[in-house]
């Protein structure tokens, strides 16, 4: 494995040297890139793409009240361009990616570029059979046996670019000294489902699949907006999720997940609570409130044949909930579907599931959410 990566490194550097010495050799590549559609950012606030002569600059940044950070990487197409010494440069044709989040995989999978992933944090948490299979076929290296990134494994995988989360202090990049180029990715900070989805364009640019990314985004965007515009406000409320022991981590009303459900025409019970983080409620608070909510949307890992009766068995007060009594518990079983990763790129399907569950669509085959029986 290591010798293989060294070999590929040699090949890569050889290719680079070729570029430097023979200007003609890069022409085909340049044209290749120019042929790509350029990407326009419509919803997302966390990244930007700047096109210039001979290179593309990909910028990621914080926005709003989030901890500030700014990062960028140059995708090179003209080798004569002189960059500042500290700039990070990748070649989009050969780019080998390491990912700190499995969410990124769904973007790459959709663009048919999963093969460029050489290392990943938390392979065992990948919940999508097809992606898992590809990862194991490609012998993708596990980076995080524990919470920490294992540096040796990172070196072994030798990525051109390591996509990382800006957790903690983003400015002091812990990987800076390693010589491995990183790019901060914070798609989860986006405040709408479409903005989050739009990050597929960034992955498209990185992997030379901008056309496909643009097309996919446009298709989903249209489907999503069409559905959203067709829904009528139902004047009905919903609560969300399940407690962990005595704490109920209810998503903030600004969260993408809540927004998506609200797009189906129902209202979040805690929509007036402020903040962008999860809000911790005590059991008794949610019991007191939840009893009145019309719907109960649950995203949780449960056995495959989880039933309404199993839910009541978890806590007997649930049988008093209006949503339980009326069989209006909308459930997404994460042990069955890949809500947290695949769901990000299929908001139109999730929205359709929700519209179907709330009785606004006649016929539909639910994929993520369905009514608990």
């Amino acid at each position: 494995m290591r010798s293989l990566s060294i070999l590929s490194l040699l090949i890569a550097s050889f290719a680079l040297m070729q570029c430097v010495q023979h200007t003609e050799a890069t022409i085909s590549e340049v044209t290749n890139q120019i042929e790509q559609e350029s990407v326009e950012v419509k919803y997302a606030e966390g990244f930007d793409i700047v096109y210039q002569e001979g290179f593309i600059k990909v910028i990621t940044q914080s926005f709003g009240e989030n901890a500030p950070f700014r990062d960028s990487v140059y995708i090179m197409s003209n080798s004569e361009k002189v960059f500042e010494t500290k700039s990070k440069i990748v070649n989009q044709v050969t780019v080998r990616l390491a990912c700190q989040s499995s969410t990124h995989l769904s973007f790459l999978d959709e663009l048919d570029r999963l093969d460029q992933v050489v290392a990943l944090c938390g392979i065992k948490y990948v919940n999508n059979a097809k992606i898992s299979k590809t990862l194991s076929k490609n012998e993708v290296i596990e980076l995080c046996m524990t919470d920490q990134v294992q540096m040796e494994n990172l070196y072994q995988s030798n990525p051109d670019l390591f996509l990382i989360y800006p957790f903690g202090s983003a400015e002091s990049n812990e990987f800076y000294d390693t010589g491995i180029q990183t790019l901060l990715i914070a798609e989860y900070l986006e405040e709408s489902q479409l903005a989050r989805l739009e990050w597929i364009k960034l992955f498209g640019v990185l992997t030379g699949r901008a056309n496909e990314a643009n097309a996919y985004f446009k298709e989903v965007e249209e489907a999503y907006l069409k559905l959203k515009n067709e829904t009528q406000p139902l004047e009905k409320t919903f609560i969300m999720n399940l407690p962990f022991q005595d704490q109920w981590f209810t998503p903030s009303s600004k969260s993408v997940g809540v927004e998506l459900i609200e797009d189906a025409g129902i209202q979040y019970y805690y929509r007036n609570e402020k903040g962008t983080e999860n809000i911790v409620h005590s059991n008794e608070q949610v019991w007191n409130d939840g009893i009145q909510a019309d719907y109960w949307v649950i995203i949780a890992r449960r056995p495959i044949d989880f039933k309404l009766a199993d839910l009541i068995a978890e806590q007997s007060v649930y049988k008093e909930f209006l949503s339980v009594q009326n069989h209006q518990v909308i459930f997404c079983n994460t042990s069955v579907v890949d809500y947290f990763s695949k769901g990000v790129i299929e908001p139109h399907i999730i929205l359709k599931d929700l519209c179907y569950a709330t009785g606004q669509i006649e016929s539909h085959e639910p994929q993520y959410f369905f009514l608990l029986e």
Partner: protein
Amino acid sequence: MNLRSDIALIGVIILGIFILFWMNLLLGDVPMKSADVFNLLAGGTADNPAWSYIVESRLNRSIVAILAGGALAISGLILQVFFRNPLAGPGVLGITSGASLGVAVVVLGGVTMGSLLGNLGIILAGIIGAVAVLFLLLFIARFIRNSVTLLVAGLMFGYFTAALINILFLWANETATRKYVVWGLGSFEGLNQSELLIFTTLIIVLSLLCFMLVKPLNALVAGTDYAASIGINVKSTRLLIILFTGVLAAIVTVYCGPVGFIGIAVPQLVRVLVKSKNHAVILPVVFIAGSLLALGADFIVRMSSNSLPLNTVTAIVGAPIIIWVIVKMNQRNVSF
């Protein structure tokens, strides 16, 4: 004189328990009037059907706090006297860690707390872990005469089991891991009726059984040699002490998580405050004082909408008590 001051102490503790118990029933994120609470406790109904569940949950959790706090405290008392060290306790000696390891093996192995079988499995695993650590400690105690060194050995067990648990994490799935982590923060909530019944029965029976140890404990303050000379069967006493303290600490740990500090701080404090040297008095006082501290800690947790973990609160309340007692003991030149 002594008797009167002890009776006053008991009175104050019981009064405190009553007040906190009532406040725990009355106050919370969902505001209720005392009339409502009384009505619901009497089996009445409220406009919001959730309220009867809420009051029931507040009641259950208060009962769990009272029993768990008491159990940890007497377990700590017995261990302190047995090891003749005021810093001994189920947490320090690694007994809770042993129980945690047992729980981790079962929980991270994917068994859920809900089912009766899973429940019994976890209890059994916790008890085995706790008692195993105690036996191991006793074995080591043969070679270590110095009881401070023994405490260090106990702490090492703690680190060792924590490391084993971390290794177990490698094979566990995300849900089981999270479940274990949340359990590790400690909480008196979340016991359903059948669990509460098992918990209450076990704790009460075991706590009463601890009264078998009254005479041995009275004698053990002078050390095992003297205890043997005043008619105490040291061997069987040692076995009973391991079983009672280990099982008590294990049951609390299984149901409420590894709750820290109550097991050390309460017996220390009570042994300073109580005038009687008879464990027939000290045991129950330590129990109710443990109940009071646990109830108080849980009240703070509840007032924070459960956002403060129980172990954070017990540490904030317990650690200063421990330091205060150590300082006080050193001032009075009491040998450890």
